[in-house]
């Protein structure tokens, strides 16, 4: 039983990371109908920035994360402005291909600059906490709580502020948003900024648990796409719930079935849910 709860905690940690990444993808998809295949690689960049800020520039953990988020916000906005905005009036497939190009470009750049080595970031919080008989590392608690705080913050921003609600307005009715005077370009820019910032935060939180290496974004990306297909493309609650479902499914199947199969669990779940609900858990009616 203790092992089971331990795996629940691990699942929540994984789920937190997945949800934050999936939220970014779903936000961008919601307003631009663009599946940003490069998103996992923004996640990877976020991990590297935090890693180097700590190991080379001597920043402590939280300032390094803040710096990484800020850096990725800028990179995200540059991507929108320089790559995706010019393609806005081109056929849809062009932006998708461009996002794959960006993905390859980021990974190649990372390999060239930092090599293909696996790097380890030591956690400043390596103590353990005893919680109801479970021993949990402090870092894991930090991941879980920070993710929750970020999601609550995002939700308040989207629901309670006029600027935040322009993102949802554009996702719910694009032309309706134009006709009330919302500037499409500003919303796209803001959405890329938020999504990239979330990816950097997720990566930085996870960095002391996982290893940092150039292709670390690829698997996360794949999982995040599973999640948003599972949760319903463009759905925010779907991304959050889907992230936790996948995280828990992986960690539990990894323990009780076979750790070799833990990635398989994700895709088995995807196939199963899409068989039962082809449009995903939270799919919106066609507009």
């Amino acid at each position, binding site marked *: 039983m203790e092992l089971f709860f331990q795996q629940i905690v691990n699942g929540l940690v994984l789920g937190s990371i997945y949800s934050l990444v999936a939220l970014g993808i779903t936000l961008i998809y919601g307003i631009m109908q663009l599946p940003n295949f490069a998103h996992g690689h923004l996640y990877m960049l976020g991990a590297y920035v935090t890693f180097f800020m700590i190991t080379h520039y001597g920043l402590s953990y939280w300032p390094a994360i803040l710096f990484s988020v800020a850096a990725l916000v800028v990179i995200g906005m540059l991507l929108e402005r320089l790559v995706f905005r010019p393609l806005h009036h081109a056929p849809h497939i062009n932006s998708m291909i461009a996002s794959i190009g960006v993905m390859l470009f980021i990974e190649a750049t990372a390999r060239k600059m930092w090599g293909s080595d696996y790097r380890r970031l030591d956690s400043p919080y390596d103590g353990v906490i005893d919680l109801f008989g479970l021993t949990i590392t402090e870092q894991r608690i930090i991941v879980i709580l920070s993710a929750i705080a970020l999601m609550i913050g995002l939700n308040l921003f989207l629901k309670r502020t*006029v600027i935040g609600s*322009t993102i*949802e307005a554009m996702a719910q*009715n694009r032309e*309706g948003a*134009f*006709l*009330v005077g*919302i500037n*499409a370009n500003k919303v796209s820019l803001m959405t890329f900024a938020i999504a990239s910032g979330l990816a950097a935060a997720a990566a930085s939180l996870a960095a002391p648990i996982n290893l940092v290496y150039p292709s670390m974004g690829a698997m996360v990306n794949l999982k995040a796409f599973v999640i948003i297909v599972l949760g319903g493309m463009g759905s925010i609650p779907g991304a959050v719930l889907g992230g936790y479902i996948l995280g828990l499914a992986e960690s539990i199947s990894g323990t009780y079935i076979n750790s070799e199969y833990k990635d398989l669990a994700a895709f088995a779940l995807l196939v199963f849910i899409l068989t039962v609900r082809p449009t995903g858990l939270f799919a919106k009616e066609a507009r």
Partner: protein
Amino acid sequence: MLKLIDVTVKYGSSIALHSVNLEVNEGELVVLLGANGAGKSTIFRTISGLLKPAAGEVKFMGQSIGGWSPDRIVKAGIVQCPEGRKLFPEMSVLKNLTLGAYIHRKDKAGITRSLENIYELFPILYEKREQPAGSLSGGQQQMVAIARALMAKPKLLLLDEPSVGLAPLVVEQMFKTIEKINRDGTSVLLAEQNAFAALQIAQRGYVIENGHLVLEGAREMLCDNEQVRRAYIGA
């Protein structure tokens, strides 16, 4: 106030509007009559910047707005209540109205005042203010759409078939409301298939057929016109 000069609009290679000339003066209520597919919405979408004219000029208060983005045109004072409403269905009625005042978002007191006016005009929207806009009946959604447009405090209001799909009693009320909005100082361009009701409240009108403006004139002239009577009033 608004002037379309020889405006031509294409969808791909097919021409939807042929050299359209149309004018709305300050304070006027002008009706645009036409059958299904005649090009009414195309004119509206062009004025709002959702479509770009292939040729010709769109002028608003002295400025040429032909290539402007939709949000810039809203800020200039032209606001459209579009065909199909285009509400934010999962947001509350109140949120839809608040976003209607997006361009005035810094003026909190002004928004509160506009909301009061709206609730006076459409009391039912006050009752429904916390409900998702998508859950309302067709007529109520139409009210939200008009109210949302009014929240932007337009100088010129474009109404694209606001009566479509509504019960006759509601239609009558809708036209009274439009008349009142115009009397209160907003210029209105109204697209309608319901020519009889629209001509009751309009001062002037245009008739569009297959992308050509074929007739224009004062209300009395259009009401008496044999062609209009046969085609749109059925008398």
